[in-house]
């Protein structure tokens, strides 16, 4: 069949919401999911598709947002949703987008911009599926958004550490014991910075937190509108894995940003832009001490002063030493302080 020469691989033009009162009222992810009380990742799902709208296909890789959300023969999704494998968010996004493009190009399907969003947890995305995500971000001819919801553990299997688990956190693979207090000595991988730095064909990478819901939704809209493959990293406080009263979910999200532990930014066509309280930090506002955030969570209840100091020092370096603060760990000064 001849290639239809009039095909344009368009994206939807989704305008940013100008404030909470302008947020669309429709829900494309509704009630009836078996998530924990206070699950911020579920909130991310809701906001993600609220921003994307009805002409959307969502691919969900294995994890809490698959197992907890969709209990067979029921579903909370209003838009089409399909499960994909743990390490497959990248390939699911790519395959879905490529399939749609092929059919529209060849006139086998009505051409219209359909959002393709694939989500992964930190386990499925930063560990197992990193290769596939990286590959997808090199394919500028396919439009998709990969959203990594980061609850800082393999939460669905009852909390095991992943490459995104913070230093020293208590998980079932890193329990503090009488001989070893800290089993998990690794520092969290910098997904957004790494992917932005390494994939020049990817036009949009951003970090978000559902505590700042309108900003998060607007970044999702931008990612879906800009064209090509895009990536968003969302930090999701998790009452189960982090051990805290579910009411605290919103506040903990804010504290993560106010302490500088999680920076809010976007990289659009290579240009870094800071958001909200992160921008204030870059402009000189003092960061809240990390202990204010860490000691509100049972997973750090075993920390002693030494651990808190180490954690604080690592975060200090992000803002005091990095060439592009909070984003990427390159520095001019070769003397290591941490």
């Amino acid at each position: 069949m001849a290639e239809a020469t009039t095909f344009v691989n368009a994206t939807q033009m989704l305008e940013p919401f100008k404030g909470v009162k302008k947020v669309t009222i429709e829900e494309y992810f509704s009630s009836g999911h078996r998530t924990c009380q206070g699950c911020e990742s579920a909130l991310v799902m809701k906001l993600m598709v609220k921003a994307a709208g009805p002409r959307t296909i969502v691919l969900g890789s294995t994890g809490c947002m698959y197992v907890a959300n969709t209990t067979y023969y029921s579903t909370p999704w209003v838009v089409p949703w399909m499960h994909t494998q743990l390490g497959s968010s990248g390939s699911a996004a790519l395959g879905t987008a490529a399939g749609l493009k092929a059919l529209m190009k060849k006139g086998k399907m009505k051409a219209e911009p359909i959002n393709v969003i694939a989500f992964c947890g930190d386990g499925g995305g930063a560990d197992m599926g990193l290769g596939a995500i990286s590959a997808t971000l090199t394919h500028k001819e396919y439009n998709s958004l990969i959203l990594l919801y980061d609850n800082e553990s393999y939460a669905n299997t009852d909390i095991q550490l992943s490459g995104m688990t913070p230093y020293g956190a208590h998980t079932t693979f890193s329990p503090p014991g009488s001989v070893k207090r800290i089993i998990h000595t690794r520092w969290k991988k910098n997904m957004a910075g790494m992917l932005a730095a390494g994939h020049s064909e990817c036009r949009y990478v951003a970090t978000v937190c559902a505590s700042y819901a309108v900003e998060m939704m607007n970044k999702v809209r931008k990612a879906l509108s800009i064209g090509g493959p895009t990536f968003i990293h969302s930090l999701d406080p998790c009452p189960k894995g982090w051990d805290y009263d579910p009411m605290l979910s919103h506040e903990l999200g804010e504290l993560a940003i106010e302490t500088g532990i999680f920076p809010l930014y976007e990289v659009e066509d290579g240009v870094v832009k800071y958001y909200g309280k992160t921008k204030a930090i870059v402009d000189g506002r003092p960061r809240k001490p990390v202990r204010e955030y860490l000691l509100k969570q049972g997973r750090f209840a075993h920390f002693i002063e030494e651990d808190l100091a180490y954690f604080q020092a690592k975060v200090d370096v992000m803002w005091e030493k990095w060439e592009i603060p909070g984003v990427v760990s390159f520095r001019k000064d070769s003397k290591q302080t941490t």
Partner: protein
Amino acid sequence: MAHLVCEVVYRGIFQKNLAARITRGIVLSARKSGRWGIAFGRYGDSPQRNGVPAKDFAIVADSKEELEQHMARYEPKELHVTICVDDTLCKGVESWAWYGLQPINRLILPDGHLLVTTTQSADDLLTDIHKKDAPYHIWLLQGKASFAGLWVYKEDHTEVRLLGALAKIAPQFLTIEGVAEAIREAEWGSDLKVESARKAYERIQSRLVKITEGNPETPYSFELPRWWEMREGVTIPALPIGKPIEGGKGYRPERSPVFKKFSTRTMRPVIDFDTCVKCTLCWLQCPDSCFDVTPEGLYDANMESCCGCGICEAVCPVHNCITMVNESAFEDNASQWEMWRRDKDAYKVWLAEKIRDKVTTARSHGFRYRGQYEEELNLGELELGGAALASGIPGENAKQKGLISGVHEDKSTSIVTGVAEAPGG
């Protein structure tokens, strides 16, 4: 009885470690009188979710052969004792979709036992507990529900008190001396705990529940479709899109008809529609999409869907506009907005009565700051689960709402290690 089958019905994650201690404690106590036993979690509940009802089981028998009848089983079909460690579970339990609402006493054999930790009276509980077609005994252990989380445990002696009570309920299997010995040998055991167990053993009393007593409502259930009725490709239809409520205004999303989630909550939000400033934050930040947008732009939490996380109260900027209230204070899932619409004055009275005890309303939700559990237990009566602290209640608007928030002086001195003994994954 040559074998004793017990279940612990509990709030997932919050009481996971508690349930593990109880079921293991049952087996280890019975071992002291020469019995064999197994303890296991209900596999389908795993992975557990905060608040979603779950079950653990302990089965003890005189001989290994008898024990085998109960092994490699998913869930016992009937049992002798149901231990309910949060009295709001007495309203019924829905653990996953298509499961229906299961009465708390469903599996209990005739003349069996229901042991509940509660501060309510039996009569109050029996307005929630569904009627059963056979009589059974109800035993009440006074005290708040013991809530913690995965990594930090609340040592409020609930597990040992329940073990002590069980020695009264099933003395043929658990002697109080056996219980005392097992507690002493446990990693978490102590002489003080043995004392608590004995006290519970001495004080616990029962009452017979007749077949005429209980909540007369028929709990909802579903018939599972047959293999050829199910669409192929592991595929099901999506939820339909929501609709306006009245006159083209407002919005009510379609919600899953087969998974309601209200049995997950221990508290529900009570809303003052008169003081609402329509900031949209409760609606926006609810992870469960519970809020309907009313035609006048207010927000009504759907009580079939609300799982009681409390985020709405945390983000609401107006003092007393949204207040989380203990679920036992309510009889049904009626819409508050409908109530308010019908009679605003009556609603105001109803609201005031519900939130009156707000500051001391049991915040049965777990960890807020290091040292909190110790503080609660020091400030209150151990036997009742300690004091209910309002501090640490979060929200960026906490201060303006007159709530204590902020950083707590770290009072704990111990290095906390997690309780890594929960069965069932």
